[in-house]
């Protein structure tokens, strides 16, 4: 785990670029879906204790809509696309053919639409990442959950759990218009994947 605390600046930059490319393509896909410009914050690369990971989306009890997929192949890992309830309803309203009735409950149609959006975005994040690194990466079928952030995100920490009490997270935030946080991508590569990502991109890494 110590190696992650002492990651060289160049390694952090590379991981930031990984987040940038993945989320950049996903942002373009989303922008086409809703026919609006979508901005993106500079990705944050952080080694965080488990307890602080859910804080990145508003705390362990924050209700979130999360698409999760497990990345398999050369550089396995976990990928989450996270929306807060108000952002998910805003997104649904901007899609044609869906009438949002309640702010609290989700109809079957809404869940299906969110699920499909998560699918498209996560798939686009991952495929651009695979192209960029030249690594073989294949997603499991994405799964959607609406629940507490702590419960959802902890599912992506198991691989790190065997190594220590923190995980390395590549966090990219989508923004629309007035800097309101619209959605977040979390990529949590398995500890064993970092060496492969760095090697694929020709970056020195001990």
């Amino acid at each position: 785990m110590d190696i992650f605390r002492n990651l060289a600046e160049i390694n952090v930059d590379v991981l930031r670029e990984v987040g940038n490319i993945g989320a950049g393509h996903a942002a373009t896909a989303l922008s086409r879906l809703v026919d609006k410009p979508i901005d993106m914050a500079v990705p944050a690369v952080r080694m965080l204790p488990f307890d602080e990971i859910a804080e990145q989306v508003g705390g362990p009890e924050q209700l979130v809509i999360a698409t999760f997929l497990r990345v398999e192949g050369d550089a396995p890992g976990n990928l989450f696309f996270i929306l807060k309830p108000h952002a998910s309803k805003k997104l649904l309203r901007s899609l044609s053919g869906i009438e949002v009735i309640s702010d609290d409950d989700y109809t079957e149609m809404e869940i299906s639409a969110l699920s499909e959006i998560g699918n498209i975005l996560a798939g686009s994040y991952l495929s651009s990442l695979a192209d960029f690194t030249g690594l073989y990466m294949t997603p499991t079928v994405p799964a959607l959950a609406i629940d507490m952030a702590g419960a959802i995100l902890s599912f992506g920490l198991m691989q790190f759990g065997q190594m220590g009490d923190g995980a390395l997270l590549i966090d990219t935030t989508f923004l629309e218009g007035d800097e309101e946080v619209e959605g977040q991508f979390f990529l949590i590569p398995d500890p064993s994947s970092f060496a492969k990502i760095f090697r694929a991109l020709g970056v020195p890494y001990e």
Partner: protein
Amino acid sequence: MIEDLQIVKVGMADLNVVHGSGIIRTTGLGSCVGLTLYDSIAHIAGLAHVMLPSSDTAREGQLNLMKYADTAIPVLLEKMEKLGGQRRRMVAKMAGGAQMFAFNSMSDTMRIGPRNVENCKEMLMKLSLPLLAEDTGGNFGRTIEMNCQTGILHIRSVQMGVKEI
């Protein structure tokens, strides 16, 4: 009577106890298991937020004993005994161990919730600690808290509301 109840928060892969009066709580349990031990005479409640089933899989240098089912429960028991808790009076409850996402190809890592529950039960049996009640499994997250005056475990979830065991 108005009193400020002390609230002890337990993080992931962590454990703690409350003694006399107070509430012990852990939030956002998914596949993790919140396991409580309670001594009703000494009014001691202990809570462990177990993340992984077995320390056999650990590859970390310094083992965090509070993370694994097989190591966290003995540590919790010892901590309560130091405060005057008696093992023969202690009863266990647990909640969590959900399967947050369902996949077709279920590898063992994906089944982490059910395995956490199984290993906690096995460990309780080994230590002859009776499991009084549980609210485990499902596909939803839980926040739990125990008041050490009553030993009642409050369980809150987004889908199921509030429940007491």
